[in-house]
């Protein structure tokens, strides 16, 4: 029974400060720790040896690693100036690697389109269900120079409502119009 697994954890994952909205220069003096995960049997002596599963020593439940805290608006203040707003589109989501491939289009000024990779930990928990290919988000880079230099980022996903009856009727009309324009080409022999 005392099956246990030692897992090296990076304390960054549990920082109370959001990694996206982290203030510039915030030094962290953290010591890596080793967490020991055990089966439920270890925590409840009454359970020990009481079931075949417990005796097998195999963990009976697994838990996904906790997500890092994501963007919080409290960091963006009235006097923060947006340096750039990137409109992003999710191209691909790799849940195993905890990253999403994104396409970025600058909304301020002329800037070529870029692609990149963003850690899913940078997405706020309330937006996690919106992360899927095609989803649109806005990545805003703010800066604030008074009283001290502060760089703040905000990542927000665009929410879309459900299809309404009015929209479905419009789709029907659009679809009829679409089909009415088709004309067959001749076939080769």
């Amino acid at each position: 029974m005392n099956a246990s697994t030692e897992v090296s954890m990076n304390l960054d994952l549990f920082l109370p400060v959001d990694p996206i909205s982290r203030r510039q220069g915030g030094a962290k003096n953290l010591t890596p720790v080793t967490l020991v995960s055990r089966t439920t049997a270890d925590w409840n002596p009454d359970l020990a040896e009481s079931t075949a599963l417990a005796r097998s020593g195999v963990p009976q439940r697994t838990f996904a690693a906790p997500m890092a805290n994501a963007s919080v608006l409290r960091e963006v203040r009235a006097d923060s100036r947006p340096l750039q707003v990137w409109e992003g589109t999710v191209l691909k989501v790799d849940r195993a690697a905890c990253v999403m491939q994104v396409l970025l289009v600058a909304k301020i000024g002329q800037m070529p389109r870029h692609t990149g990779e963003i850690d899913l930990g940078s997405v706020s928990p309330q937006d996690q269900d919106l992360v899927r290919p095609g989803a649109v988000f806005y990545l805003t880079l703010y800066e604030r120079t008074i009283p001290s230099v502060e760089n703040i980022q905000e990542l927000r996903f665009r929410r879309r409502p459900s299809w309404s009856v009015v929209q479905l009727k419009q789709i029907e009309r659009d679809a009829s119009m679409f089909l009415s324009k088709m004309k067959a080409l001749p076939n080769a022999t």
Partner: protein
Amino acid sequence: MIDYGTPPASNEIEVTLFGPGYGEAIAVHLGEGVWMMVDSCIDPDSKAPASGTYLEQIGIDASQVRAIVASHWHDDHVRGISQLAAKYPMADFVFSTVLNSKEAAAFSAAYSGASSAGLARGSKELFSVVQARATVFPAHHKSIVLQASLNGLPVIVTALSPLPAAYAQSLARMAQYMARKDDAINHAPEFGPNMEAVVLHIDTGDDAVLLGADLEEHQTCGWSAVVNDRWSGDRRPATTYKVAHHGSYTGDCPQVWTTLLKSDPVACLTPFTLGDLRLPTDADKSRVRANTPHTYISSGASRRPDIDNRQLKRLSDICKKLARVDVRFGAVRLRKRIGAPSWNVELFGAAQPL
């Protein structure tokens, strides 16, 4: 701005392939002043459709464009095609027949129509064209897309795909994404593998050109099915090939090189760079070069980020592996006089041998 020089002679066939790194467009001169456009991408200098800018620059009148073909509705092949359709109102607008069904119309309307603008840029472009036009022409296997003549010989453009099996497959895919009341509105997916693309065969009387679009390999719906089809196999073998699907192995079918093409054809392709997908890969390049040494790519430029240092530093804190999508623009131009033994190749901008 690229200087493209003079237009082709009346008895000269021309295939010009444009590509900025993400996007593809082709302009084809079928002889005697008749032009066809296939797909569309944006010229970074003119900010307008590349093939339209090209024709304007070499002095081609809008009335000479007889057909515009959208091989499929992916964003990298249709950017600006609605502008192109407006610029050439006399040209027939042709697209894949997979959009010619109740299911496909409803799918297209849902993700591109008035109720949901912005959900799918690619299909939005096509939808805009359909809205503006009185008629549009769905193309499928064996469709005659365009007929012209060159020195008295007939020039015929036919579609080798999509095949009937691909049509059925696409309907099934689209049906899954039909809009339903109270369902959350999500974005239109890009289906893969691409079996709906329109592959074009151009028979010029004494030679032929094969434009492979983005058709991918599949036994019953993709390249294998095309090359194993008797009618397709009877087409005149081509000496020029626009390599399918940006040279990717998913668009590769060895029989294409032996059945539909003559040996050592001139091949050209555009790159595709989006996210972590970069085509052609080194392996793709080697494979294409093994089939023919005469291969050219529209753009081989670097993808390093092009953002000012201050913003780049800030953005890099969150977004890793930043790469530019639209790298330097280039064009590969192939011309051949009727009866001439080989193609004349010209490279513009960032185009280079593969």
